[in-house]
Structure formats: structure tokens, C-alpha cells
């Protein structure tokens, strides 16, 4: 995003908001991973403790979700950089 039109008071304000949103995004990511990995990995309710198989599944699922998100993020950033470069060429 382009904040070049912002004065310094606006930038300070915007930075606070962004910081807060990053915190919220992080917490939502956390909740998403818990939900998704629980739903994928836990299907046996004959016991109340996680089995070691379930635990392995949850750990792999979490790690994989991060790697997935990071890869999506990298590709997305590349696309945005390309789009930005294309938009600035004519001017």
C-alpha cells in the first residue's frame, strides 16, 4: 500500500492501527490453525486425551499450514510487485 500522501501525524496514527491489526491477524491465524488441524486430525472421541498419532498430525498440520501460508504470501507479493511495476510504467 502507498502511504506517500500521508503527513507524519497520519503516518503515526496509521502505524498504530497496522500494529493492532497485525496482532489481530496473528490471533485469527492461530484460531484458524487450531480449528483446521483439530478438524482434520481428531476423529476419535473414545478418550479425552490426544493420542500420540493425533498429536503428530496436529504438529505436522500446523507446520504445513505455516509453510503453505508463507508460500502463498510470497507468490502474492510477487504478483502485487509485478502489478505495481506495470501500473507505474506509463506515467
Amino acid at each position, binding site marked *: *500500500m502507498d*502511504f506517500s*500522501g*500521508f*503527513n507524519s*501525524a*497520519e503516518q503515526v*496514527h*496509521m502505524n498504530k*492501527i*497496522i500494529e493492532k*491489526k497485525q496482532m489481530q*491477524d496473528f490471533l*485469527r491465524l492461530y484460531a484458524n490453525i487450531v480449528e*483446521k*488441524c483439530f478438524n*482434520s*486430525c481428531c476423529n476419535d472421541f473414545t478418550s479425552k486425551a490426544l493420542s500420540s498419532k493425533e498429536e*503428530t*498430525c*496436529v*504438529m*505436522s*498440520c*500446523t*507446520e*504445513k*499450514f505455516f*509453510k*503453505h*501460508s508463507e*508460500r*502463498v*504470501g510470497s*507468490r*502474492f507479493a510477487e*504478483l502485487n510487485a509485478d502489478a505495481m511495476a506495470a501500473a507505474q510504467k506509463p506515467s
Partner: protein
Amino acid sequence: MSFLGGARPSGSGNGLNTDKIDMAITELDTITDFFNRMVSSCHAKCIAPRYTDGELNKGEMVCIDRCVSKYNEVQKKVGEKIQSRGNPGAGGAAPGPMGF
């Protein structure tokens, strides 16, 4: 999000142009929402729900790259379609629960 274009004027006295900031927040929220949905769709399309280890395999990596590319193309096509239907973005005629 190209059609989030024109900044609306008006301010609020304390050196903060609240409309401009509101607009920036809306843009930020929109990109984040869009990104999160893409992550979720591409996860459903590309990652098999059997978790024996935490590494992405080759097939998954290639699938993710193509998925992001296609998702982005779909976003553009849908955006063009919406604009051609005459929904100008702000204050547009998106079908809502009421006519306001």
C-alpha cells in the same frame, strides 16, 4: 484493489484526515480478507488432509503457485464483470437487504 481509487476530501482539525485514514483501513482490510480467502481456498485445493510430516512436497508447491496465479486471475475477471454491470464500488448497487 484498483477500484478503491479516488480519495474523498474532508478532515477533522487535529491534523488527521480521517476520511483518508478510513479509506486506507478499508483497503488494508480488503487485501487481508482477500489474502485469507486465497490461503484457505488454495489449502483446500492443494494440501491433502493427511498430515504425516510438516513439509510441502513438490506437487503441493507447484499446485500452490498455480493456485495463487489462478485465484488472482479470477479476482480480476470478477472485478471486470462487476464493473461492467455498473456497480461503481462506493455507494454502488450491490444487492443488499434494503434499498437505503
